Every structure is written in structure tokens, then in C-alpha cells.
């Protein structure tokens, strides 16, 4: 009866991170890009909690993942407000259309 070590958890968080990055780069929907950011942050906080369990990081890791969660919520709120403004200006949420400053 072997217990699960840190590596499987770290692998899962790596998958979360990579999926988030891929999501951020490929999605043209602004909200989709936001979801990618959430995935990346989640991978990071899973890493923190894993290390808080398997290393003497202790509570610090959990505190950091709490901060990550709370700040991600704040980030989502502001980003959504920006997305709504974008939608009101361009009548679409396609981020490729926001190229007015491109010259």
C-alpha cells in the first residue's frame, strides 16, 4: 500500500499549467483567455499545496495558495470589467480585433 508521492501531484499541476498556457495562446475569445489564466494559477497553487505537504514548507504553502486563489478572484473581476468594456467598444469579444494601436 504505497502512498502517492509528490511527483504525481506535480505532474498534474504541470498539465494544468501547460493547458492554461495553450488555452491563453490559442483562444481568440477574451473570456477563454481568462480561463487559461485561471488554469495556470491553479497549477501554481496545486504546486504550493503539494510542497506544503511533502516538504517542511508547512503552512506557508497553504497560505500562498490561499493568496493565489483570492488574488485570482480579484483578477477575474477586473479582467471581466475590461472584457465588458472591450465588448462595448468593439461589439465582439474576439481579442484579435483589438488591434487599433497596432499602427
Amino acid at each position, binding site marked *: *500500500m*504505497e*502512498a*502517492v508521492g*509528490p*511527483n*504525481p*501531484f*506535480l*505532474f*498534474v499541476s*504541470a*498539465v*494544468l499549467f*501547460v*493547458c*492554461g*498556457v*495553450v*488555452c491563453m*495562446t*490559442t483562444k*481568440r*475569445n477574451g*473570456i477563454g483567455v481568462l*480561463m*487559461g489564466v*485561471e*488554469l495556470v494559477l*491553479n497549477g501554481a497553487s*496545486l504546486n504550493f*499545496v503539494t510542497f*506544503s505537504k*511533502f*516538504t*517542511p*514548507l508547512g*503552512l506557508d504553502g*497553504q*497560505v500562498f*495558495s*490561499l*493568496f493565489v*486563489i*483570492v*488574488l485570482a*478572484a*480579484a483578477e*477575474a*473581476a*477586473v479582467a*471581466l*470589467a475590461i*472584457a*465588458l*468594456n472591450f465588448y*462595448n467598444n468593439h461589439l*465582439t*469579444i*474576439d481579442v484579435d480585433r483589438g488591434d487599433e494601436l497596432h499602427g
Partner: protein
Amino acid sequence: MSVETMLFWLFAILTCGGAVSVAVSQNVVRMAFSLVLCLGSTAVMFLLLGADFVGATQLMVYVGGTVVLLVFGVMLTATGPFTKIKSSGADAILSGLIGVIFLFIISTTVTAVDWGDISQKVAIGTHQKTAARGFNPEQQGNTTRPLGLSFLSVRADRDLNLSRNVPSVEKPVEDAPKLSSGYLLPFEIVSIHLLVVLVGASYLARAKRRVATNQ
């Protein structure tokens, strides 16, 4: 195979599946649902790691709050029902390839490190005390009280004097335990930050609507 291991693999598959389907899916609402699946399973992973408070916070703030916000954003910005904004195929293939390579690099790096050895090296000078026991069995993730204390700037689980003063049979601890300082200042900064975000987000969303009605 113990129950914990089975649960871990079940929820690891759910987490990864949700994450992949967020990255692959083209429909925003389905993406939101996959995100719920992924974040919820991550919360269970937190619980499996003994971080009960973080897991509950993840469920409450992320799944119950942020994702609801995202879904509202989807609804408010959709031009028609079930709109899809397709990303180009070449982009998807390229980024998928880079993603796989990146995942390979990360996973080989992770498996190359001996975490147990590093823990022992880092462990010198730190000392874990068990938290006060509640009704539940020990190590069922009794993290609520220590976390609350650490936000009040008291770290009951860590003794800073221990590094200078290693207890042994011949030489018992002389100094009183010196509790390490906690996270009061970051906590306050985050609360102020949240207030600013609250005001700012509602201002951003509100001002726009006024302009829209003027037009």
C-alpha cells in the same frame, strides 16, 4: 492499492481531462463547465493533500465565485446563442506541439529531483508542531486554526529558536520558543487590494453602461 491512491488517480484524471477540454473546446460555455470540473477536482486534490481549508476556499471562491463571474461574462458578451469564435488550425497545432514539449520538459525535471533528500536538507532548523486536535482524527487536515493564527501573525507550528537551540537529552531547550511571525501584513494588503478591486471593477463596468446609454 489504497483508497487514497484510487481517489487520487480518479481525480487526477478528472483534473487533467477538464484542463485539456478547456484548452481544446471551442464553445465558451462548455469551456466554463470543463473549468468547473477541473477546479472542483483540484479542490479534491487539495483535500487529499490534507489542506482542507484551502480546498474549501477553492470551491467557494473559485468554483462558486470566479467561474460564475466568468459565465456571466460569457452571457453578457455573446452576440448570439452558443457563439463560437474559432481559432485557426495552424495556431492550435503549433501551440499544442509546444505545449507537449513544455510538458515533457517540466515532467522530466520534476522526476529528476529527489524531493525527500531536499526536504531533509531544508528541514534543518524547522520544526513542525502538531495542531490542536479537534473532533476529527489527527492529520485529517486540521489546518483551519493554524491558518487563522498565521493570518493573525502567530505561527504556532514553527519555532524560530529551534535552529539555535536544538533540543537533545543532555541539553534541553533553554530559551522559550520563539514563534515565527505570520502573515498579518500580506493579509491586510490583500484585503485593501480586494476593496480597491471591488470599487475599480464596479466603476469600470458601470461607467461604460452610462456612455452606452448616452449614445
